[in-house]
């Protein structure tokens, strides 16, 4: 190939994809979020065929594809399955300044884990297996989304 254009200053076009989206939570998700917002309750759903309780709730079991009709209220407490303390600073997406922690929490009675933030604990004190409980936002601040739960903190009876 010829080098008839060697020495060209390579140019870059800086642009973006900026688009408004609106995702419906559907009837099942809306039930979950309105219950969380209005009553501070966390609901899961149980597949009777697989005998599994899912949080977040499902309209259909992803394993057997049967419809799930059974709702189960779950206590706002469970066990930390795993966690990470995030030290990267990405304000464009992260919900908090570093260091902050994510965890996967298995609520008592559930067969799947809920991902959320961890709070009211020093990073060095977080361990897998810790019992944690949900801390909700004040009712007037709750908007019907996953951040109506502020975070999970170490369980205190």
């Amino acid at each position, binding site marked *: *190939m*010829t080098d*008839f*254009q060697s020495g*060209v*200053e*390579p*140019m*870059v*076009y*800086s*642009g*973006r*994809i*900026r*688009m*408004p*989206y*609106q*995702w*419906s*939570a*559907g*009837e099942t*998700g*809306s*039930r979950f*979020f*309105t*219950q969380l917002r209005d009553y501070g309750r966390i*609901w899961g759903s149980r597949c009777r065929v697989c005998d599994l309780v899912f949080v977040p709730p499902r309209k259909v079991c992803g394993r057997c594809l049967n419809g799930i*009709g*059974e*709702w189960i*209220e779950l206590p706002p407490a469970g066990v930390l399955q795993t966690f990470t303390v995030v030290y990267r600073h990405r304000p464009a997406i992260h919900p908090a300044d570093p260091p902050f922690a994510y965890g996967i929490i298995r609520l008592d009675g559930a067969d799947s884990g809920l991902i959320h933030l961890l709070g009211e604990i020093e990073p060095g004190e977080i361990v897998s297996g810790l019992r944690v409980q949900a801390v909700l936002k004040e009712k007037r601040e709750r908007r*019907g*989304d996953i951040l109506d739960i502020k975070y999970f903190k170490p369980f205190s009876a």
Partner: protein
Amino acid sequence: MSLKAPPELIVFQQMADVPYNWSLGREGSLFLIALRDEKKFLGIKCPSCGKVYVPPRKVCGPCFTANSQWVEVGDEGVVTAFSVVNYRFTDPATGLPREVPYTFAFVRLDGADTKLCHKLAETDPARLKVGMRVKAVFAEQRTGNIEKDVIHFRAVQA
């Protein structure tokens, strides 16, 4: 089952906003440098079939040959197709409604075989026709951007 039907549907809204830095490649860069510095349009020619591409690209698809010769093409050309855009839609570059009306056109510059997408100054359909000759209107301050360095194309009086 202890819950009634939900009183409302929850809908999550988000303005997705992802920045990108798209490389223009050597061909695109050289084209835009000539446009920026010399107000010139360059085409790139396939050594196999002789087709002149504007905007330039590295490969002639039908021949699968690397285009290898630069040629200067005119800043005037012919409208091969156009559409006056009156409907509202979201511009995915800004997340905001794109300003209408504007005229979207394919312009074949003199000496080129492919067409350049751009805008025409005229938005009255009665004063537009396929085959009309148009000329590029350049911006005073040019930065190497096809959208901004060429403000639009306007009709050339016969």
